[in-house]
């Protein structure tokens, strides 16, 4: 079914340049997002990525530090939650414990004012009349909503006597009965057990289809997001990483983070030899991507189910490997296979025993190439001495081959392998927090955030935990500094 032009541009929610800073920490960093009417949109990301903050700003519980939020063409940035045409299903239900099920659901309806024609006041002006819903209207709507969530006989029940799943249904009924333009759901199934969660997923999808209203759903469960949504918005570190259909974010992740976060994946670094040809693990593979520079370093993802296992003597496949572990997962086997120093995760219906030598084959459509977010760490700084340069609030030694004068503004670049992290912050020149780590088979790519708001990427064989405080040292031999040319600066601006 092709959508019309109107449908495509019918935005119900627009988030424009929204930034949120809590206690000097930027939780949401200049996010732009449009949500189309009637869609089921999921905000997906690891905990602490800012997805709930974004939802709360749409609901009105949190005000953005800067930027605008527009619902139905109306700027609601400063509007209190009780005036917004949205309703929320809370993570912990937030059902009123002093009211029974019926009264919980009726809460919003009792406050609702309906247009009731116009009347002429004493001065002869026409004013809009409003009226409250009558008791029987409220009862009809509440009972209808309870029926929709399968709790029609529970009206008189105390909310505390209900199970988690039933409470969640009441919370959904309570929000839907107000007939919102947009239903916001903040990890609504997080507290339910697996079976119940699966059932509720199906029911929520059904409700979305029947009601036709827009759902904005927050979750950290990538499977849930892929199952339910029309559109998935992947968020990390307060920044949108990718917006797309579930199939798109799974098959064509925009970057290594998305690939790692969504589904199981093998992430490798490679080089584009030429169009449709990529080299990694010292082997050239055919692929379906083009348009990269010759020999451009790239990240690439291979899904575990896209790797075929062949017998060692079959002559098929591109890589030779050795099975390390094999676990039966119900319908397939999940195996760790080492090949050319990389540990591949492979899912296959045929089992290979641990210790067996095998051949691995990857078809061109099984390789997805992603632009590297960054290939080198680059900072602006200043030469501060004969052999030292100041960057990121620290003074680092370097090999001043070109004899740069003290005070020269320079562009400093350090390879991912030129950075060393230390356990003890005082052992490093500057301190930083670990913000991300990505396992790339043979090493970890760690991202750190310095006190001067700059990022370093580091390739290391050590494992670091997100949130760790570390010291940073640079290898003097791997620091390159070149004078900052005026033109270059202009170009960047």
């Amino acid at each position, binding site marked *: 079914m092709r959508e019309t032009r109107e449908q495509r541009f019918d935005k119900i929610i627009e988030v424009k340049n929204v930034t949120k800073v809590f206690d000097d920490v930027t939780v949401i960093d200049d996010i732009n997002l449009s949500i189309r009417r009637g869609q089921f949109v999921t905000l997906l990301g690891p905990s602490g990525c800012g997805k709930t903050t974004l939802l709360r700003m749409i*609901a*009105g*519980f949190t005000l953005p530090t800067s930027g605008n939020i527009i619902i139905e063409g109306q700027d609601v940035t400063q509007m*209190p*939650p*009780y005036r917004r045409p*949205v*309703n*929320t299903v*809370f993570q*912990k239900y*937030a*059902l*009123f*414990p*002093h*009211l*029974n099920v*019926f*009264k919980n659901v*009726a*809460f*919003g309806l*009792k*406050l*609702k004012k309906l247009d009731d024609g116009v009347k002429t006041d004493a001065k002869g002006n026409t004013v809009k009349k409003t009226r409250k819903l009558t*008791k*029987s209207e*409220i*009862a*009809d709507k*509440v*009972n209808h909503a309870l029926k929709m969530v399968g709790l029609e*006989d529970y*009206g*008189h029940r*105390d909310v505390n006597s209900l199970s988690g799943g039933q409470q969640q249904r009441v919370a959904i009924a*309570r*929000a839907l009965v*107000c007939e919102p333009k947009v239903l916001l759901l903040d990890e609504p199934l997080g507290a339910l057990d697996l079976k119940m969660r699966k059932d509720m997923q199906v029911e929520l999808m059904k409700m979305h289809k029947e009601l036709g209203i827009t759902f904005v759903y927050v979750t950290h469960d990538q499977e849930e997001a892929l199952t339910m949504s029309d559109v998935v918005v992947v968020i990390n570190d307060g920044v949108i990483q990718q917006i797309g259909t579930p199939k798109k974010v799974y098959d064509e992740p925009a970057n290594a983070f998305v690939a790692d976060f969504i589904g199981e994946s093998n992430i490798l670094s490679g080089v584009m030899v030429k169009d449709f040809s990529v080299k990694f693990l010292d082997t050239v593979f055919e692929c379906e991507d083009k348009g990269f520079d010759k020999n451009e370093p790239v990240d690439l993802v291979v899904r575990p189910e896209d790797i075929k296992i062949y017998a060692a003597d079959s002559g098929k496949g591109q890589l030779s490997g050795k099975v390390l572990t094999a676990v039966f997962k119900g319908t397939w086997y999940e195996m760790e296979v080492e090949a050319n120093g990389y540990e591949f995760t492979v899912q296959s219906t045929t089992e290979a025993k641990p210790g067996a030598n095998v051949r691995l084959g990857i078809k061109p459509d099984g390789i997805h190439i992603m632009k590297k977010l960054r290939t080198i760490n680059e900072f602006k700084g200043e030469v501060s001495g004969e052999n030292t340069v100041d960057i990121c609030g620290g003074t680092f030694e370097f090999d001043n081959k070109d004899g740069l004068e003290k005070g020269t503004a320079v562009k400093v670049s350090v390879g991912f392998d030129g950075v060393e992290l230390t356990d003890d912050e005082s052992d490093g020149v500057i301190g930083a927090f670990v913000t991300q780590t990505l396992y790339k088979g043979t090493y970890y790519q760690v991202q750190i955030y310095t006190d001067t708001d700059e990022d370093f990427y580091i390739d290391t064989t050590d494992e670091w935990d997100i949130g760790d405080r570390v010291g940073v040292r640079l290898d003097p031999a791997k620091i390159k500094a070149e004078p900052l040319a005026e033109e270059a600066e202009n170009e960047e601006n």
Partner: protein
Amino acid sequence: MKKISFRPAFFALPYVVICAIFVVFPLILVLIYAFIGSDGSFTFENFKLVFTQSSNLTLLLKTIGIAALTTVICLLIAYPTAMVLASAPFNRYVVLALLFIIPMWMNFVLRVIALKSLLFMLGVDYGFLATMIGMVYDFLPFMLLPIYTVLTNMDKSYKEASADLGANGAVTFFKVTLPLSMGGVVSGITMVFMPVFSAYAITGMLGDASTNVIGGKINGLFTTTSTWGVGSALSFVLLILVFLTMFISNFITARAPKSKPSASTKGGVAQ
């Protein structure tokens, strides 16, 4: 050898012993004295005296009035204060809350004496006003603390849910915050009303003839006129009244979480 098993109930033993010696035994003594006449024989004369003296009844009513007024004033001051202290910007400063609690750490006779000098300096005459100031000053923390505790522990998502469903600040307060904090309010009322009901030290120190309360009368019956029998009978009546208040407040607390807003939301259940 027999093994001694330690059940948790054993740990309550010291309390049970203390309770028996200092609470149950004196109560029994009061009960016995109440039925013993001046000549040492069994009699209902003491109770007859208590109920026939009209001054006792007016005194009792006045005591209830003073206790109720103190409770209401404490509630009116404590609830908004607790709300401010429990609200986001202030709740971080525990010191602020402590400021209201610290007076409780001082001996209350000391506090009343200090207040007495202060009122004297300000030119407030001893009497009804001074008594009320003293009572409220003394019992405010007992009202504040339970309400503050309830409000700080209240999940803020209830307020958010209310706002989300279209309720503005005032509606949210009356339909959500207040009903959910009823537990704290009721225990605050109990903790203020009951001690004020039997207090006589403050009225004695800050009041005049107009603020005589039943507690003072009982004190007089024991210490001045040495009519222990009548004093015991009056104490016994007071005790019954206090039990009654406790029973009523417990009844309200038990119903509180789901009772309050029903008045405005009654009906409509179409089953």
